[in-house]
């Protein structure tokens, strides 16, 4: 609209100055500040982590609790436990999330879909302590017989190697609890992207003689792929950083083991910080913060990989 604003004759020689509107100005500044604030917060956390980690990285490992040979020796089992439990959670929860989201978006009658949507969102509001309690109080004892059966009958499979945990409090239980925790956010995101599939593309598939499932495979899932990946990454991020549920379910040890059903299980970085922090002193505090820095870097790497995967096939994303 600036072009139509009449200019005073005397100002003809000057370059046209676009009119500044207060609303535009306020909004753009507010947006700028919000964006900047994210960077500031992130930088503050990163600086804290790095600064507090340096003493641990330079200290003599003999000063650490448990006398590990080096910082890496200390952190590696935790990194492994973090990734392993989060991966277990994701493997179990992602297919379920996609299934629930498809049911809500494309199969269920509208009223049922709405009710289900609310229920799923409600799951997201349950605090993680409650999930942890449920894990040790309900899930672990209930699922222990299944674990026993698995070890007895499928013990030859390395993941199910014995001896079985008598309490059911294993990394698989922790993975299930984490899976339940990350299910709502992944379901919600998948549901939203599935609902946004253009009707045009769905009709194109149906008009070619696709069944409902074929239509979903041709039009809905490929279109929703970036959203599915984003949802999975959000879920994974939550699983990586989750503290209480894991800390409550597992009795951790500093080991690296893929076995799902034994009583000796690796801990995770976040759970280890929560469990060890109250008794930490001196350089051990820095040690725990350094493991936090490692978790920060892992999360960064996971998100970067996800971005790369989404962008790799940008031309085919359907957003153009």
């Amino acid at each position, binding site marked *: 609209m600036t072009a139509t604003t009449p200019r005073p004759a005397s100002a003809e020689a000057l370059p046209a100055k676009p009119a500044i509107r207060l609303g535009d100005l306020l909004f753009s500044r507010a947006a700028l500040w919000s964006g900047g604030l994210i960077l500031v917060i992130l930088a503050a956390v990163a600086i804290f982590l790095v600064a507090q980690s340096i003493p641990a990285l330079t200290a003599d490992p003999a000063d650490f609790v448990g006398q590990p040979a080096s910082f890496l020796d200390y952190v590696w089992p935790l990194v492994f436990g973090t990734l392993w439990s989060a991966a277990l959670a994701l493997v179990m929860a992602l297919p379920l999330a996609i299934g629930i989201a498809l049911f809500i978006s494309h199969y269920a009658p509208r009223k049922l879909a709405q009710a289900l949507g609310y229920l799923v969102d409600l799951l997201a509001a349950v605090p993680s302590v409650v999930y942890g309690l449920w894990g040790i109080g309900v899930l672990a004892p209930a699922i222990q017989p299944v674990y026993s059966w698995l070890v007895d009958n499928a013990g030859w499979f390395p993941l199910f190697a014995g001896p079985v945990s008598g309490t059911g409090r294993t990394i698989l239980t922790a993975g299930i609890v984490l899976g339940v925790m990350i299910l709502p956010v992944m379901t919600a995101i998948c549901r939203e992207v599935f609902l946004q599939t*253009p009707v*045009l*593309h*769905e*009709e*194109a*598939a*149906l*008009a*070619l*003689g*696709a*069944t409902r499932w*074929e239509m979903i495979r*041709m*039009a809905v899932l*490929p*279109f929703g*792929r970036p959203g599915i990946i984003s949802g999975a990454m959000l879920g994974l991020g939550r699983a990586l950083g989750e503290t209480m549920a894991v800390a409550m379910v597992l009795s951790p040890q500093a080991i690296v083991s893929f076995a799902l059903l034994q009583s000796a299980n690796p801990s995770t970085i976040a759970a280890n910080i929560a469990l060890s922090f109250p008794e930490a002193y001196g350089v051990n505090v820095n040690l725990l913060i350094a493991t936090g820095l490692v978790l920060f870097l892992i999360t960064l790497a996971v998100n970067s990989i996800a971005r790369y995967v989404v962008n790799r096939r940008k*031309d*085919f*994303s*359907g*957003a*153009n």
Partner: protein
Amino acid sequence: MSKRIEVRDLNVYYGKFKAVEDVNLTIEPRSVTAFIGPSGCGKSTFLRTINRMHEVIPGAYVEGEVLVDGNNLYGKGVDPVLVRRQVGMVFQRPNPFPTMSIADNVLAGVKLNNRRIAKSDAEALVEKSLRGANLWNEVKDRLDRPGSSLSGGQQQRLCIARAIAVEPEVILMDEPCSALDPISTLAIEDLIEELKTDYTIVIVTHNMQQASRVSDKTAFFNIAGTGMPGKLIEYDETATIFSNPAVKATEDYVSGKFG
């Protein structure tokens, strides 16, 4: 390949609303039939009953019969999925699958119908279909690019290639040129003329010049008012409809007095 379509006493409903009332007409094989009429007169709805696509909308159903070579599409136990494999459709807005390459778009329907197709057969079919849609020369060097990288007119011809790749008996076109520029429209119209030798084509159009250019017969639909069902007013040779229609409303519409 092409088949005769007979429609008998067809009523179309969306829930309680009667959208189209009492249509009777016969469409000859290897011909182009145009449906014209003002917006909301039910011509698109009626078109979609010929491949049961209207059923995509919840609550939609029909009374009456649509016979393709004597087989009622609405007979007991007839699977709408199979109907749509025989009666292809091209939509108002070009809708190639954005997540598929040009070649995969052409093969999309074929892969549904017969899951395994040899690579050489697939390549031959892609070329044949794209040639059939007059698109081959424009895209032969970029078959692996996304379908959405093409212009609107090219995308629409890609959709036609996708429809003819499964060798349907009938091709329905729902205002296929309304989102296209005049040059692309001309390309599609030329294509319709060529496709006529193999297929029975039914086209809905708002463009009366287009109807008179491409079609052999024309059906004029109209509504008495908002909320009333659409009706088939007149169905005849295109030349007759545009020069000497039997009904006054048809004459008013084609001469531009309303609509």
